[in-house]
């Protein structure tokens, strides 16, 4: 059961991710990204992170991606055209990318010690209660700092958007 679920959603995630990169139109990419995020949410559930799974849907699926789609629609973004610039990215990008993925796979397969198996329901640590306890004790300061960060981001967005009107 775990394997099937993992495979299904991993395949969906990878397929959507490829779609994100390959699609020409931004809105297709955005929808693919939503697909990735949703399947990741399911994977989080499998890993016993129910709070994070829901937060993933609410924050990413509900807020961030809606903003993206909103902006894409607002600007009526077109498909992209190719240009001759960014020579370095064109030349060095692919080899570096391959190296990166190879490095990751090497690290995961070889360098890391063997890991435990995932069984859905074996360990459900990420309940809202547990996360809340940790968030408001050990991570209280980062939490407050990040609240301020959000506030600043709101102000920044408002300022930038106001310029739009002028």
């Amino acid at each position: 059961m775990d394997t099937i679920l993992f495979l299904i959603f991993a395949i969906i995630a990878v397929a959507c991710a490829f779609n994100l990169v390959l699609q020409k139109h931004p809105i297709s990419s955005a929808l693919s990204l939503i697909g990735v995020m949703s399947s990741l949410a399911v994977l989080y559930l499998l890993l016993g992170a129910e709070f994070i799974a829901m937060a993933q849907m609410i924050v990413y699926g509900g807020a961030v991606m809606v903003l993206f789609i909103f902006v894409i629609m607002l600007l009526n973004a077109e498909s992209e055209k190719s240009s001759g610039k960014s020579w370095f990215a064109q030349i060095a990008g692919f080899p570096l990318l391959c190296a990166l993925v190879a490095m990751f796979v090497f690290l995961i397969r070889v360098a890391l010690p063997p890991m435990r198996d995932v069984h859905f329901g074996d360990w459900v640590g990420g309940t809202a209660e547990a996360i809340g306890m940790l968030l408001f004790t050990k991570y209280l300061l980062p939490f407050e700092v990040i609240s301020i960060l959000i506030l600043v981001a709101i102000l920044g967005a408002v300022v930038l958007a106001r310029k739009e009107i002028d």
Partner: protein
Amino acid sequence: MNFYLVSLIKIAVVFGIFMTTLAYLQWVERKVLAHIQSRTGPLRVGPHGLLQPMADVLKLLTKEDLLPPYANKVFFLLAPFIAVSLALVSISVIPFGPEINLFGTRTYMQISDLDVGILFILAISAVSVYGVALAGWSSNNKYSLIGGLRSSAQMISYELPLTLVIVSPLLLANTLSFRGITDAQAGFYLGFIPRWSIFQMPFPQIFGFIVFMIAGFAETNRIPFDLPEAENELVAGFHTEYSSMKFACFFMSEYANMVTITCVATLLFLGGWHPLFPAPYSNWVPSLVFLFFAGVFLFQLMRPSRKMDRLTYPVFAAGSVALAVLFAVPVLQTFLVPAFWFASKVGALLFTYIWVRGTLPRFRYDQLMHFAWTFLFPCALANLLLTALFVAVF
């Protein structure tokens, strides 16, 4: 395998009831609106138009399925599917009653008891904006696009007060699970005031309930916040280009969302399936209510307005009496009575929805945003802060 079997049965039952409700909700709405406007409403198909929903479904199924030539086909087809599936999926975490014994298995009157049920509902409602937005965009029609844009902006804006106000009953209940929240509202103060969130000490959530309902109206794109489909400016908004079953999907998703949001309101603020009266009396209330309905039908029978009534009223009366008897059977009472209370609360709230639709005019778009950010949001915040303060102090 019992688990799967029971789950399948529950899914079947809930789905059946839910779809029927959706179909008949539309009939109720048309009827109520008609009466508010001194009309009679659907009357032709079936007794008192009771078969009207079936006729509508048939009509929509047989209509021509139009596809605008310059639409983005994939998304045009995807949008109603997203809308309706997301709208239907959220009912799965709603509990309708307490733990019951079904074929020797103890189970909940709920498809799935999620620990973070309320977050699930929020997640689904957050994502459900895509159906509308995509429909608006892919139609390649400026009215649709404006409708879609309005819808995304509106739903993001109203989600904030909605979420904030949800937190207050959560603070009182100390859990994210719907079952836990409802259980926290069981019991009575002084033996007769129910401990529902809107009455619950230390900080009654009446205010929060009102804010929730207002934000709920906006979240479901209902009047007075139905800007995305404002017919006098945007033809029909995001679903202008849709016809046939695809249109029906949007239609259904709107009603499904309405039902979901009223269910959530009931669970969070109105004590879920917990009765209005203390236990021994409350078990007999449903039977009395149905008997009262039977009386009304029989009374109406004495002054039939049409020929058909001579046939239909006795049938209705007999049905009501049968229901009353059914609700009086002690074995069935364990799950029928809670379901009755739950349904009646949801029904009352749905009636409010329709009532508001029949009463209030539509907002202007800037008023809508202004209202959300400068009034509703601060209100929700203040409500949350006060609740937190009271919970912390007492």
